[in-house]
């Protein structure tokens, strides 16, 4: 009986996390189109609801009502499985994200490793989708994405090791606690090169512009998604945005002090800013990273595939390795307030 109660309590927490997340995903698509619109000097969606505010709901309704096609030559089981494989890890990874002190669904010791494992599962969605559809564009998209995601995962893994060296724990709440203090206590400052590498790798991992050769609408139409329609396409879309928010959350936890306010611990203004609760600071930091995503998309042209691979292997990995060496010297000498 008590097990049932416990599971129900956990389910309640999960629903309390997932429902707002869905709202954020929906309105992230709206925000993206609005921000891109402003950056292009146009209006963006403005017809449905006040200032286009109901646009995401209309989009969701439209996708649900469209026919879901399964191509005749496709491997039907895997074709249906692929969106699930893309979406489920993107949701499940949220289990270990701490929104505030103690505000976390699963407080596990290997949280960071679990997150890395879950994000590395996302690649199955792409590969299976591309292969099962039995279309040439899908196949090309799947191969490209597979090799790209896999290459940037190494750089990302090395970057996470840099954070671990500084914090000495894989528990995400403890990583945030290790950064307690004003904004110059956060890890973005001593680990700045690693932070940059992490961010670039994260953009590439989520297949966002300028690394979106997987979709490459001008060359391989939509890559692995080309045969998907209706909600099966919508799920890939949702997974992409859920992953973006996840990456933003992870960046805030590891480099931007999670739920702490930027002036935490400063004599006079610190307590004033601490009046705003931690989760709000955390969400504000995520919002900043999401804006960064859109800003980057509006600014940079798409990379060529060979340039992407070169950047991943020949620039990001050496930079992280060098900075890990520098960091071990920091750790040995106990440098600054961070180590």
């Amino acid at each position, binding site marked *: 009986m008590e097990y049932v109660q416990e599971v129900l309590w956990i389910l309640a927490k999960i629903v309390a996390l997932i429902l707002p997340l869905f709202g954020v995903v929906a309105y992230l698509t709206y925000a993206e189109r609005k921000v891109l619109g402003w950056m292009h000097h146009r209006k963006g969606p403005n017809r449905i609801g006040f200032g286009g505010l109901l646009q995401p709901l209309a989009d969701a309704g439209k996708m649900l009502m*469209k026919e879901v096609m399964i191509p005749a030559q496709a491997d039907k089981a895997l074709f249906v499985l692929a969106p699930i494989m893309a*979406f489920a890890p993107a949701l499940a990874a949220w289990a270990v994200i701490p929104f505030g002190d103690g505000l976390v669904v699963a407080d596990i010791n290997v949280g960071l490793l*679990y997150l890395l494992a879950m994000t590395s599962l996302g690649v199955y969605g792409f590969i299976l989708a591309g292969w099962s559809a039995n279309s040439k564009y899908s196949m090309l998209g799947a191969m490209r994405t597979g090799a790209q995601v896999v290459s940037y995962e190494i750089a990302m893994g090395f970057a996470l090791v840099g954070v671990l060296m500084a914090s000495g724990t894989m528990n995400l709440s403890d990583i945030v606690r290790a950064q307690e203090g004003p904004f110059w206590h956060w890890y973005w400052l001593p680990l700045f090169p690693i932070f940059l590498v992490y961010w670039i790798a994260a953009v590439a991992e989520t297949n966002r512009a300028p690394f979106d050769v997987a979709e490459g609408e001008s060359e391989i139409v939509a890559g692995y998604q080309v045969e998907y329609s209706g909600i099966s396409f919508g799920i890939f879309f949702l997974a992409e945005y859920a992953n973006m928010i996840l990456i933003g959350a992870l960046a805030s936890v590891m480099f931007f002090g999670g739920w702490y306010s930027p002036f935490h611990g400063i004599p006079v203004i610190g307590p004033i800013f601490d009046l705003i609760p931690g989760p709000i600071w955390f969400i504000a930091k995520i919002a900043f990273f999401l804006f960064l995503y859109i800003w980057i998309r509006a600014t940079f042209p798409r990379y060529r595939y060979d340039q992407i691979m070169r950047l991943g292997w020949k620039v990001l990995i050496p930079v992280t390795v060098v900075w890990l060496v520098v960091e071990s010297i920091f750790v040995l000498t106990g440098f600054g307030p961070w180590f």
Partner: protein
Amino acid sequence: MLENYLPILVFILFAVGFSIVFLAAGFVLGPQRPNPEKLTPYESGFNAFEDARMKFDVRYYLVAILFIIFDLEVAFLFPWAVVLDEIGGFGIAAMAVFIGILLIGFLYEWKKGALEWE
């Protein structure tokens, strides 16, 4: 320790179940009017002329192998970074040798041009 993993298990099951429900909703709410032309693979308006599951450049395979090796290296680095304060200079030296050996491999693949995509 295990009680911390119960939420993870529930969360994963929930995520999978949720995706399935979502997908099923699309099948239920949307129309189902298949016809042979609609179900052919998209190939810019032409009929598909051969199976899409063709042989691929072996380079993708090479990238996957190199990825496994470096992923293992990262997996070795994780516990090392956690206990760094305990094992101190000796641990750093041990890892320096480990990384050094793998760096030889990395330089080798760089010089051999295994990272080139022309």
